[in-house]
C-alpha cells in the first residue's frame, strides 16, 4: 500500500518513511505544503500522514483541498499543537485521526493500520472471511485455524485484497501500491504471486479466496464474517 508522508523536519520525515517502508508500505515523501498537496492530489495513495505545521501551505489547507477534490483516503495528522482547538479543526477539516508529537513509531504504525483497515470497512485488525483469518498486527494469515507460511510480498498482496474485500483491484493498482516507485514494473510478476498465493491458501481449490476478473483485475471473494 502506498502512503504519503508530508513533514517538513527532514530527520523525522526520513526516519518515519524508513520505518514505514520496513513495515511493508510504499512511501512517498513531501517536505512542504505545496509539494505535499501535489502528491496528495496526483498520486494513487491509500493514506496520507500530514503534519499540521508546514511551510508554504498549512496541513489544514491540504486536508481541506484534498477532501474538496473528492479524495476519500484516510488522513492521519501529526501535530505538535496538541490543543483540542487544533485537533478539532483538523478532524473537522477531514482528517480521521491524529498523533501528537513526539510519538513512538509504534503509535503511528498502529493508527495507520487501523485507518487502512477501517477504510476497507473492517472494524477490527483481525479480519475474518469464511475460513480465512488475517491478523494485521501480527501479519499472519490462518486458514481453518492453521497458519500459512507467506513471504512478505505475498502477505502484502493478500492484505491489500482482503482489506478491500469485495472490490475489484486492477493489476496496475496492485503494482502501484505494493512496489516502491523505482521498482521495476511487470504485471506478470503479480500474476505469478497471485498463483502462488492461491496454491498456499487453497491447495485443493475449495474455498477460492481470490477471483480473477478478466481484463479488470482481482477480487477477494469470501464473505466477511464480521460486520461493522
Amino acid at each position, binding site marked *: 500500500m502506498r502512503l504519503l508522508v508530508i513533514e517538513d523536519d527532514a530527520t523525522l520525515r526520513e526516519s518515519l518513511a524508513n520505518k514505514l517502508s520496513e513495515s511493508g508500505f510504499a512511501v512517498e515523501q513531501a517536505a512542504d505544503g505545496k509539494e505535499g498537496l501535489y502528491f496528495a492530489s496526483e498520486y494513487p495513495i491509500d493514506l496520507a500522514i500530514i503534519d499540521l505545521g508546514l511551510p508554504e501551505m498549512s496541513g489544514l489547507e491540504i486536508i481541506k483541498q484534498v477532501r474538496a477534490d473528492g479524495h476519500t483516503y484516510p488522513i492521519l495528522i501529526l501535530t505538535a499543537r496538541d490543543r*483540542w482547538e487544533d485537533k478539532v479543526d483538523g478532524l473537522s477539516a477531514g482528517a480521521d485521526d*491524529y498523533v501528537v508529537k*513526539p510519538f513512538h513509531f509504534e503509535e503511528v504504525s498502529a493508527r495507520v493500520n487501523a485507518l487502512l483497515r477501517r477504510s476497507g470497512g473492517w472494524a477490527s485488525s483481525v479480519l475474518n472471511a469464511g475460513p480465512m483469518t488475517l491478523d494485521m498486527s501480527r501479519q499472519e494469515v490462518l486458514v481453518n485455524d492453521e497458519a500459512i507460511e507467506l513471504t512478505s510480498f505475498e502477505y502484502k498482496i493478500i492484505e491489500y485484497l482482503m482489506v478491500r474485500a469485495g472490490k475489484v483491484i486492477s493489476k496496475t493498482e496492485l503494482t502501484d501500491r505494493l512496489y516502491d516507485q523505482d521498482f521495476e514494473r511487470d504485471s506478470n510478476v503479480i500474476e505469478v504471486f497471485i498463483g502462488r498465493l492461491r496454491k498456499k491458501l487453497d491447495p485443493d481449490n475449495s474455498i477460492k479466496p481470490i477471483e480473477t476478473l478478466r481484463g479488470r483485475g482481482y477480487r477477494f471473494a469470501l464473505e466477511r464474517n464480521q460486520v461493522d
Partner: protein
Amino acid sequence: MNSLSSRLLISVSVLLLLFFGATIAVLDRAFTEAGEQARRDILDGHLVALLAAAEPDDSGELVMPDRLREPRFERIGSGLYAELRNLEGKVLWRSRSALGLEVPEGTVPELGNHLFGRESFEDGTPLLTLSLAVDWELDDGDSKSYVFKVAESLDGFNAQIAGFRKQLFGWFAAVAFTMLLAFSMLLRGLLKPLRQIETEITEIEEGDRVSLSSKFPTELTGVARNMNLLIDSERARSDRYRYTLDNLAHSLKTPLAAMRALLNSRQDKDFGERFDEQIERMDEIVRYQLRKPAASVADNLVLAPVPVEKEVARLIDGLRKVYRDKHPEFEVRIEKGMQFRGDTGDFLELAGNLLDNACKWCERKVRISVVPSVGARAIASGMVLTVGDDGPGIPQDAADALLQRGMRLDESTPGHGIGLAVVKDIARSYGGRLSIKTSDLGGAEIMVSIPPVTTAKGQ
C-alpha cells in the same frame, strides 16, 4: 453621588434654590416696603384731614365734628381709627369706628413732631399708627397741647403680603420645577452618547460587536478611538501570546519527535529506553506548561461567549472519528443557548480532555452535560460541565491524588494525568473547581464548576 447626572442635577438644584431664594427675599422686601410706605402716606393724609376738621369750641377745647368726611372713621371696626388726647393722655375724642376698642396710647411724640409706630389692639390685631403732638393756639392767645393719633389695622395689609408671597412661591416653584425638568431632559440628551458607549461596551462583552462605532460627538470620538485601540491591542496581545506558545510548542516538539525517531534506529536498547524516558518527561513539561489557560492573559472584555452546543458537537464529531472502532454512545445534555464566558480554546481543552478520557475509559456510554451555575442569573454567567462514563471509574485515593497534585509526571493513572491537570488549571484560572465522583453510569464522573464571570474577574 457617583452618577454624573445626579451630580449635575443636585448642583443645579442647589443653584436654583439659592438664586430663587435670593430673588424671593428681595422681591418680598421691596413689596413690603412699598406697601408700608403707601400706608404711611395714606395715614398722613387722614391726619391732615383730622387737623383740618378739628375746631375749638366755646370753652376753648378742641372738638371734632359729629361726622367726618372719611366714611371708614364712621363704620364700626372698619380698620381705620382716630383719637384725640390731651397731653396727659386723657381721651378727648375717638372715632366711631373705634367703638369698644382701646387704641393703645403708645409713645407720645415731642410737640410738633410726627411719629409712626407699630402697635396692636389687646386682641393682637397689628396696627400702624401715626401720632402728632400739636400746640393749638387759641383765640385768646393761650395754647393747649393735643395729641392726634390715627391707626390702621394691618390685617388687610398682612393678608395682601401673604397672598403676594404665596403667589411668588407658587410661581417660582413652578418655574424651578419646569427648569429642573427641562434640564434633566437636556442632560439625558447630552449623556446619551455616554450611555451609547456603555451599551456598545456591553455588546462587545457579549460578543455582539467587535469594536465601538464611530457615531459619537467630537468630545467623545477620542475616548471611543482609544477604547477601540485598547480592545484591539488587548486582542492582538492575547493572540500573540497564544501564537508564541503554539510556535514554541511546535518548535520544541518536532525536534523531540526527531530525537525519538533517531533513538528507535539505535541498537543499544537500554540506552534508548533511558533516553526515551527523558524525552517523555520533556514532552510532558512542554505539553503542560504550554497548554496553560489562555484566558488568564485576556480580559473578559475581549472574550466573545462560546456557543457550548456547537463546540461540543464539533468535539464529539472529532472523537467519533478517533474512537470509530469503539464507537461510544454519546449522551449530550446541554441547556439551550448555553454560552461559556471565556476563551474558546480553554473551553475546548476542558470539554475535550474530559470527553477524551471518558472515551478512552468507557465501555460504551459517555455522557456530557453543561448547565448554568446554580443561582446564576444570566445563562452566560457560569457553567457546570459534567462528563461521565461507564468505565471502571477512578478509585477514591487516586482521585484525591489527581486533585491535590499539580502536575503528574508519573503514569499511575494512565491517560488521566496531563489532560486532567490541564482541566484543573483552566478551571482554577476561571475561579472554578474540579471534583471527581462516581457516575450513575458506573464509571468516573468529573465535574467542573465555573462561577459567574463577575466573581471570576481579577483572577
